């Protein structure tokens, strides 16, 4: 790729540049950058009518999805916080899900608040159970109370023997990023052009693997596994990965018997400005 080509994530800056800026002059001559910039403009368009798209319905469902995903994390800990957000969040676009109206095909949801989610049920909806659970919470509340007491007793019994058991290692996305995975330190750039990556290890891991990601967080390369908690990229490798500016982030995966058991969040991988 041409060194001057604009990364997709940098397209936003282009729209602010004057036409005589060197980057814009390059865009004017580069089909790739023009195509990407046009795509980005299409992404930002709100006025285009898309035949078959159900904008209002999608808007209501995604609003609820985001609320479940982001705010719903606290719902398990207490509805108090969610309730507060719904009361105070009107200015910030939060908690409006129960006011949705005008969604074609979602008429029965109007005024019934939590029924809005019925307008869309993806085949693999990871939040369906959580939603159903929340709806039935009032009915099941006495059962929950009993369950909580029993769980507390069981937890006390289990904790006594916890010292003899290996800790539970979440796999894949089950874990919260950064909490159970290896914890990376900022990349150290060497004067000769190499780079050292370091991270805090994971107890159960017997090896680590480095994954390089591009600006869109798509994987571009996997570097060999190491048993250490550090990895040095020689200048040639750095040059290769930076050649077309494709590697912009790195992350480390903890391996156990060859299987990835946890991974770090992506870390920026940009050389210091000279």
């Amino acid at each position: 790729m041409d060194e001057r080509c604009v990364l997709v994530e940098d397209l936003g800056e282009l729209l602010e540049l004057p036409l005589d800026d060197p980057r814009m002059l390059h865009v004017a001559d580069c089909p790739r950058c023009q195509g990407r910039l046009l795509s980005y403009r299409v992404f930002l368009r709100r006025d285009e009518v898309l035949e078959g798209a159900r904008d209002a319905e999608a808007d209501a469902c995604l609003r609820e999805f985001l609320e479940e995903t982001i705010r719903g994390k606290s719902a398990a800990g207490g509805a108090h916080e969610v309730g507060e957000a719904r009361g105070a969040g009107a200015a910030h676009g939060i908690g409006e899900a129960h006011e949705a109206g005008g969604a074609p095909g979602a008429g029965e949801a109007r005024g019934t608040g939590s029924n809005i989610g019925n307008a869309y049920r993806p085949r693999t909806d990871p939040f369906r159970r959580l939603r159903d659970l929340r709806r039935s919470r009032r009915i099941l509340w006495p059962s929950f109370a009993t369950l909580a007491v029993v769980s507390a007793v069981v937890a006390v019994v289990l904790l006594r023997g916890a010292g003899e058991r290996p800790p539970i290692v979440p796999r894949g996305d089950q874990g919260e990023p950064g909490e159970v995975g290896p914890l990376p330190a900022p990349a150290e750039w060497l004067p000769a052009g190499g780079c050292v990556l370091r991270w805090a290890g994971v107890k159960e891991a017997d090896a680590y693997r480095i994954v390089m990601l591009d600006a869109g967080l798509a994987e571009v390369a996997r570097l060999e596994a190491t048993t250490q908690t550090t990895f040095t990229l020689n200048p040639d490798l750095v040059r290769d990965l930076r050649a077309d500016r494709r590697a912009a982030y790195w992350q480390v995966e903890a391996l156990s018997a060859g299987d990835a058991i946890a991974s770090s969040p992506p870390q920026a991988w940009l050389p210091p400005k000279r």
Partner: protein
Amino acid sequence: MAADVSNNREPDNARERPDAVLAALAGRDPEGSEGRQAASELLGRYRTLVYRWCFRYVRDHDQAMDLSQDVLLNAYRRLGAFEGRSCFSSWLFAIARNRCLSAVRRPPLLQDEEGDPDRVADPRPGVDQTLEERSEEEEILRLMRRHLNPVEQRAFYLRCFERMPVEAITRLLVIEGATGARGVLQSARRKLRAVAGDRLRPKEGDRHG
């Protein structure tokens, strides 16, 4: 190119906070109440745009919803890695674009629930394939610059590399005439075949063009 879009989402009123402020809040305190509220507000601003982008690719409401949820969830998980060096809108666009491009490259199993998992290859391209594709892309771009006019260049890139539907290209480039972008693409292909011959093989996503 017509300036009919706004760049980073501008606040509708003075009380709304800019994208960069929300992204910083969400990245600084991802588990806190304020961080979550900021993430919810920020991603909420773009949820419809993400859906519409996905819909353009798959032309199916349910599939577009699945993709949109993936994109928003990915973006939420990775907000901590967003360092504010670029606009949030283009950072999110990069995630949405990659997700949709990989979706249209998916093997049939992911669309056919009765497929045999053992017979499906890893959807990720291998190193050799990636290098080959990159080198082929460079070659095509070189030929495009030399032999196609600007409208053909744009239409061809959008169709073959961005996998944009033909109708969307017609509207975007305001191509008039009965055949719209289809005619422009045919003309571009003819020119490229004439100079490149067998070096150009049809792309998987280019069947409908």
